[in-house]
């Protein structure tokens, strides 16, 4: 009896537990956040929580310099990371694929390590490497006569240093995605290119890259999603400092939520954060579909 009932409603029964989970853990919390964002709820304040309408949002965009700064910083970090990771990732993927040799498995294994390792642990290792006075990076730079840097401890170099760490961690993902994409490409265009006498760089530029474009685009989109909400490596190395110089949107929202306990104000930031990320992803997928059609 029951099994026949399940059969008839399979379409609804199978996904039901997941749907309940998503509603309880995602949809409801989001709705709750939107509601909170319209209040002045602060855990540490004795004042009663009141409905204050759009006040939080107005304050965010007109008065909160730290918020505006953190938004730009997030774009700076994301843009820098994306450019480096996509360029180097695609280049190294094409390089690795160019020749056949034994031991390619080992190359793939090593590429996997940075992205699988625990980000906080990785951040600690880089904190040691980039230590301005005792770190091995500055020591090596001095040995070869290059200028040294203060890396994570100076306001001007902290974001580039974080981009460096994130790129070390995630460029291999683009490399592996490129390799997977290259494995699916047809060989015919290359044969005719050889007949036409094209050199290696012409073939890469006119054949390989255009055919790889959809693959690279998805790789870049995945990186955008993760870079924009970067938290682990920043929070554990600089905590947003020195000063506020590495405070991205995620870090600032976290500070407002769990350090200042301004639940209402933080909620309005969460709503904006949510809107930016979802908006960008929808925009990219929409334009991609239109370009393909």
């Amino acid at each position: 009896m029951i099994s026949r009932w399940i059969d008839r409603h399979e379409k609804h029964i199978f996904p039901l537990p997941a749907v309940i989970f998503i509603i309880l853990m995602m949809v409801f919390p989001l709705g709750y956040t939107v509601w909170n964002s319209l209040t002045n709820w602060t855990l540490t304040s004795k004042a009663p929580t009141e409905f204050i309408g759009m006040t939080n949002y107005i304050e965010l965009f007109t008065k909160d310099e730290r918020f505006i700064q953190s938004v730009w910083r997030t774009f700076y970090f994301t843009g820098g990371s994306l450019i480096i990771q996509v360029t180097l990732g695609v280049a190294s993927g094409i390089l690795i694929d160019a020749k056949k040799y034994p031991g390619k498995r080992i190359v793939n294994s090593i590429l996997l390590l940075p992205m699988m390792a625990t980000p906080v642990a990785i951040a600690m290792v880089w904190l040691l490497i980039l230590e301005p006075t005792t770190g091995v990076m500055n020591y090596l730079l001095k040995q070869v006569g290059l200028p040294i840097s203060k890396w994570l401890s100076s306001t001007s170099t902290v974001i580039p240093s974080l981009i460096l760490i994130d790129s070390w961690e995630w460029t291999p993902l683009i490399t592996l995605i490129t390799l997977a994409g290259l494995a699916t490409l047809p060989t015919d265009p290359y044969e005719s290119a050889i007949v036409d006498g094209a050199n290696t760089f012409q073939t890469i530029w006119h054949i390989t890259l255009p055919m790889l474009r959809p693959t690279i685009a998805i790789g870049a989109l995945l990186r955008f999603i993760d870079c924009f909400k970067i938290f682990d490596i920043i929070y554990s190395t600089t905590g947003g400092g020195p000063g506020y110089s590495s405070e991205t949107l995620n870090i600032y929202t976290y500070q407002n939520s769990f350090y200042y306990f301004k639940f209402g104000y933080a909620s309005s930031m969460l709503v904006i954060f949510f809107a930016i990320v979802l908006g960008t992803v929808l925009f990219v997928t929409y334009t991609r579909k239109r370009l393909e059609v």
Partner: protein
Amino acid sequence: MAAKKTSMYRTQRRIFSVLYFVAIFILLVIFLSPFLWMVYCSFKTPIELSKLPVNWLKGLTMDNYQKVFVQQNFFKFIKNSVIVAAGSTFFGLLIGLPASYSIARHGQKKLSMLILTSRIVPGITFLLPLYIMFRELKMVDTYTSLILAHMLTGLPFIVWLMTPFFESLPKELGEAAVVDGASSLRTFVSIVLPLSVPGIVTATILSFTFSWNNFMFSIVLATNRTRTVPVAIYNFISYASIDWGGLMAAATVITLPILVLAVITQRYVIRGMTAGAVKG
């Protein structure tokens, strides 16, 4: 003349070949050396650690590991991490597999979009309301709240991975079983799932790893009793001045099991990490 040209061509090719392998070698050194440095430093005494140039054989010690396991009691944090990672992976699969199967069979695009949204949206958007909810329910610092929160990263990934996998199975499979009188639940459990083992293995490894590595959910929801390893290593630096040797030993202890797992199962891991970017 012709012979000379060929030999020149050959030398040129050989030079290119050497340059090529030098480039590959440099690439591997870049990605491998921070790990080697981490492991090496975990065996150094504090005084020797800050001395450069490195005296490779001087000041080697096991003290750092003793600190990690005896003083800091990392066994407890490892146990917590294993419970949370295994729990969130198990329940993620339990609700994610039937959902993915249904999405694949019935083309439920909206449902898959809804679940995948939780992969796209920054975790902190859920973290604050969940923290408030769990606080009200007196559930902060319990395995249940951590497992539920970690499932938010595991579940969308499982669906993202398994939906195309189920789509690639021949449709006749299910239909043949239904003709034979098997219920849809039976078909799913005894025919579809056994055929999906490679996909499930990939989903399991990656869901476990993501949970193991998760820092933000854990630092808020796990305060004392259920503290996981990424939070424990972070606390290593926040108390006193940084004990680099101990910190590197802790980093090694946390990352090594995951890295060994990744290398052993690399075929699955690569397929999982690059899934969705390549068609077919």
